[in-house]
């Protein structure tokens, strides 16, 4: 933990000021609110879909009993209570990642548009301190978003006694939020990197969005599920890739870059909805992919902020 020493005081001040600035941004607030609404929706969808499958089973069991057919086991009983939150993985990778891009972008764009860069350049401040401060602000913002989501999901489990979690379940849930924070940081750092390095504000937003589209919809086609829209359904997204040497090779070689798939795999393992037949072909474990991506993009974002022209204010266009 960072103490309150004289050396890190500017970093703390800059981070706190950056957080206060983005908290006033309506677009950031709108996206964060949408994300939190979807966290509630995810829990409702999980509960509603599970209850409906259960009701269909009971109705089917009545029918089979009337026909004198053997009654198979209830698929709901094979489902872990944690799987109630399976849609969270989808919403984190959709709206959460987009919100993280906007937060990362605004942390830098806010200063650039306000014209405070030349002013910051006159202060006794190392350029790397500014980068570290912005990264710290991003970590705090993402942590706040994830903690809110965690609080909502925890409340969901407490008000639904039929979905009881043991100590292991709560630990897994904690691991899921930690992984979600890592995944959101990937896109937050990406937004910060291009917010600092792009000459135009629009391009600074659109490049990370294009990378997000590629990671979410294009890469998983080659490394796992061949249908792009399958990414929207937590269960369909984990359908096995076709049995072919091509998919074995692309899964192995491109798996480490297919971060949306890596996040889905870790989430499915933690929330207990991983199909037993699924094979991960990636050259490195999914969690390692996420950690490497966060470290690399965090470094790139800090370096991009540190390299910013402190004599210039606004974007070119």
């Amino acid at each position: 933990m960072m103490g309150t020493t004289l050396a890190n005081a500017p970093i703390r001040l800059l981070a706190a000021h950056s957080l206060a600035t983005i908290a006033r941004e309506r677009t950031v607030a709108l996206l964060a609110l949408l994300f939190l609404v979807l966290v509630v929706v995810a829990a409702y969808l999980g509960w509603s879909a599970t209850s409906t499958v259960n009701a269909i089973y009971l109705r089917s069991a009545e029918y089979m009993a009337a026909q004198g057919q053997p009654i198979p086991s209830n698929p709901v009983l094979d489902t872990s209570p944690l799987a109630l939150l399976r849609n969270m993985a989808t919403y984190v990778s959709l709206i959460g990642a987009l919100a993280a891009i906007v937060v990362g972008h605004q942390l830098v764009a806010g200063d650039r548009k306000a014209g405070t860069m030349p002013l910051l350049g006159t202060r006794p401040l190392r350029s790397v301190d500014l980068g570290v401060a912005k990264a710290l602000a991003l970590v705090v913002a993402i942590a706040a978003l994830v903690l809110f989501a965690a609080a909502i999901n925890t409340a969901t489990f407490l008000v639904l006694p039929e979905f009881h979690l043991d100590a292991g379940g709560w630990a897994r849930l904690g691991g899921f939020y930690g992984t979600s924070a890592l995944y959101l940081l990937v896109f937050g750092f990406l937004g910060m990197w291009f917010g600092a390095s792009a000459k135009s504000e629009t391009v600074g937003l659109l490049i990370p969005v294009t990378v997000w589209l590629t990671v979410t919809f294009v890469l998983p086609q080659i490394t796992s599920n061949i249908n792009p829209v399958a990414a929207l359904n937590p269960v369909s997204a984990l359908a096995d890739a076709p049995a072919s040497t091509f998919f074995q090779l692309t899964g192995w070689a491109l798996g480490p870059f297919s971060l949306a798939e890596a996040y889905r795999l870790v989430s499915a393992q933690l929330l207990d909805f991983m199909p037993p037949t699924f094979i991960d072909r990636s050259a490195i474990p999914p969690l390692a992919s996420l950690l490497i991506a966060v470290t690399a993009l965090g470094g790139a974002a800090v370096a991009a902020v540190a390299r910013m022209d402190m004599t210039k204010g606004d974007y070119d266009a």
Partner: protein
Amino acid sequence: MHDLVQPVLTIAGKDIRDAVKDRFVILMTAFLLLASLVALAVAAIALKGDVATYVEAKAGLIALGKDASTIPDPAFYPLKLLRGFVEHVEIIGAIIGILIGYRAAASERGRQTLALIVTRPIAQWQFLAGKVLAGTAIISAGLVLAFVVAGAAVILISGVTLNPEDIVRLASVMSAAGLYALAFFLLGFVTALWAKKLPNALLLAFTVWLGFVLIAPQIGDTLDPDNQVAGGVFKQLQIAKPQQLEILQSFSTYETIRNGIEVASPTKHFERLSFAVLGIKDTYAGQPLMPILAEKTSDLVWLLAIALALGLLLFARRLDPNRLSKE
């Protein structure tokens, strides 16, 4: 008449030239093409794998001295390979529409030329019509390119020439895609024209895109009980189709709500129409085109109504001189 149309054409021509110079619209269209080709290549490789499995199973039966005719020959519909392409048009095509619409307004606001235009002897509707005409032309050019490349790739990959009806099917889906992208163009244009801050307009348009293109279909898909159990709940319970329908009758309200959420999204209308016309949805594979088009007219009407409503909104509201600059 010429005096009325000429300013519209002048503005449209200028906007098209600007858009061609704007690298990002070109890059996003290239991205759509690349993603589509990846989708087609992947679908072809998966199909090749399925064919190899079929041949292997048949050879295995023959080797065991059994009757190979018990395995039916698989039907091959080359247009089915376009599933991933259609899904990319749903997602990326909508973004391209938003970007073209955003650029059409942002280019004027960024250069402070919008305030100048409203001082010229040109009606507001002429200015807006010029922009919409240019947007329609740019979207159409991008889609024609994408569909020609996709069609050529299908021929190249499958080794099957498309017949005239297949080409009409492709043209029908392309027209629906044009209408779909036009709706998102209007969304991007309206928000960028009216928003106080330009980048906020882009974010607002992306938020609406996220809601209609990804979240509404996601909720509808997730609420489908058959998607909640790997392989499908009825398959796991080994219940035949007629009994499935009988059981599902008890859940008609639930299904109505689920379907209602899905059809709130223009994406789902475009998808349902395209999947039916191209035979991607199994129940429509090999069926003649005209009855499919007749059945799916409501989806087309929905797309048309959404584009029309946004168009009316655009033309009905007067341009606010205070919102004509960059910030």
